[in-house]
């Protein structure tokens, strides 16, 4: 990074993001502890989990796409790959930010606040005894138990951090030495890494998000998380590239052809996300087994057929998270006109967040005064949701800015850099 003005801008952005992030995280922590007093103590933790999953999905998607590009020897995205690599620096911080979700419930002596199955003594909604009496939990307890959860979380994060560490290290080393061997090594690692990452992110999605409702069965959940992550990641990296190409160091290198190809991938993964999400619904709808259908039922009505707030969100996912971006991205112009593509990318990120809400937040909250002995947690945007998203985002952006100072803006000595710079439609 040679331009003094750029360095200053990146430094101040990073510092600003760090301060905002720390303040917002402090507010979120306050939200978790003040939420303990309310009738729904899990909501504060869910805010944190939504914020974490939003940024984690972006980072995971970028780790996927970076390795996919290596494996397929894609030359055109070489200049974009460097921007992805900056994002890959966030995993250690996300690990630190994940720990409170597990540790705080342990410290206050109620390990099962967020993940109900972590505490066998937790009462089941509807007065059916406790978690440890639940036959479904007894079958699943080989996988869903506290020790296995800790070990697996450690493995997942070592996969994420390990892969991103080596991919970043070798790519940055090429800037200085121009050693082609680095590219070969990265390609070899990626061909193994994709399998490791696919396994780790699938199981992570099951452990951290799906197990919030441990009763449920779905074979599509890991793929859903992958598809959602890819959509978020492509939108995020597109916005990032456009910011640095309009104002900063990628001016003139990030061209229409790069935008067009990223737009095509956004379209492809929009369709893929819809395909996966619908398939999950369709399989459960066709089989019609109560242990599976209830998951969709609580996202539609209150148990008596009266639609609840998740009904509107469900429809929004169909029409606003799939059909609208699908139709917008079908048009060639949308994929090359900067403003339109940024609009679609922001749109997808917003509804990605709605998708995460829809997947993570609903659940049965025990309430003796309610008709079934429980009520279904409804859609709401809390202050602490917003602070968690901003807080974790602030730390991520700070980490990205720190990384931007460590390497060249584009991988100048990469063997494929010329093809990427000359990329045309």
């Amino acid at each position, binding site marked *: 990074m040679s331009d003094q003005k750029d360095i200053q801008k990146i430094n101040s952005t990073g510092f600003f993001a760090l301060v905002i992030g720390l303040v917002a995280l402090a507010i979120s922590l306050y939200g978790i502890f003040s939420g303990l007093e309310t009738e729904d103590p899990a909501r504060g933790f869910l805010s944190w989990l939504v914020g974490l999953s939003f940024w984690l999905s972006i980072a995971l998607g970028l780790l996927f796409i970076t390795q996919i590009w290596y494996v397929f020897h894609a030359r055109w995205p070489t200049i974009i790959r460097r921007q992805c690599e900056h994002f890959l620096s966030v995993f250690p911080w996300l690990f630190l930010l994940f720990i409170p979700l597990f540790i705080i419930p342990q410290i206050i002596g109620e390990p099962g606040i967020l993940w109900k199955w972590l505490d066998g003594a937790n009462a089941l909604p509807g007065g059916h005894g406790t978690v440890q009496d639940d036959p479904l939990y007894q079958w699943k307890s080989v996988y869903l138990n506290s020790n296995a959860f800790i070990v697996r979380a450690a493995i997942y994060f070592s996969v994420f951090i390990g892969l991103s560490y080596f991919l970043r290290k070798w790519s940055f080393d090429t800037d200085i030495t121009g050693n082609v061997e680095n590219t070969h090594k990265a390609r070899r690692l990626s061909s193994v890494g994709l399998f490791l990452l696919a396994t780790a992110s699938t199981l992570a999605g099951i452990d951290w998000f799906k197990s919030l409702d441990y009763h449920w069965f779905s074979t599509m959940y890991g793929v859903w998380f992958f598809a959602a992550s890819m959509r978020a990641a492509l939108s995020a990296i597109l916005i990032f590239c456009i910011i640095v190409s309009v104002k900063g160091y990628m001016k003139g290198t990030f061209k229409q052809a790069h935008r067009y190809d990223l737009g095509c991938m956004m379209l492809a993964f929009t369709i893929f996300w819809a395909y996966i999400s619908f398939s999950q619904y*369709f399989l459960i*709808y*066709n089989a019609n087994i109560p242990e599976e259908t209830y998951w969709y039922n609580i996202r539609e009505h209150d148990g008596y057929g009266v639609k609840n707030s998740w009904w509107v969100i469900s429809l929004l996912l169909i029409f606003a998270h799939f059909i609208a971006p699908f139709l917008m991205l079908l048009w060639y112009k949308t994929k090359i006109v900067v403003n339109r593509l940024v609009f679609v990318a922001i749109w997808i990120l917003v509804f990605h967040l709605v998708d995460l809400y829809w997947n993570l937040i609903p659940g049965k909250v025990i309430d003796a005064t309610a008709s079934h002995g429980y009520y279904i947690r409804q859609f709401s945007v809390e202050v602490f949701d917003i602070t968690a998203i901003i807080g974790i985002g602030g730390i991520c952006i700070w980490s990205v800015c720190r990384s931007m100072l460590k390497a060249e803006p584009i991988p100048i000595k990469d063997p494929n850099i010329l093809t990427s710079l000359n990329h045309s439609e």
Partner: protein
Amino acid sequence: MSEEIYGIVASFKDTPSLYHAAEKVRDAGFNHWDTYSSFPIHGMPEAQGQKRSKVPIFTFAGGVTGLTLGTTMVWYMNAFDYPLIVGGYPFFSPVFPFPIMYELTILLAAFGTLGGMFIMNLLPQHYNPLFNCAKFLEVSDDRLMIAIEAKDGQFDPVATKQFLESIGGFDIEEVTA
């Protein structure tokens, strides 16, 4: 056999000169002309002033037709012509026939693409007067050519020949229809 002129062909020595010549032909305002090479040249559509392909419109029309056809077909069969209760599901809903709607969308969109490509490329075309020109056959090997057709409004047997020469063309020939 009539000796009517089909057009005039000119050869160019390398890709850049073909590319820049194409820009000049475009700027001179010709409409019925084309460049010929044995390999694709990046940016040539722009140099020729070609608009974007119309094939996507055919694809879209095919897709919409498929979606509508799939929906009405299932509705007609399951809810109108012979209402049948299957597994306790409604006679018609957008959920259970979705695979059919979706597959027909894909199928007819693919047919639309294929058909649109044939229509827009004027295929099938078994005869083209350019094959009367012996040098034109070398295009499939190493020759780069521009052909301006006589049906173009600006075409003039003498002036067009001079124009092609002025933009760097050689081996200029008239091709008979």
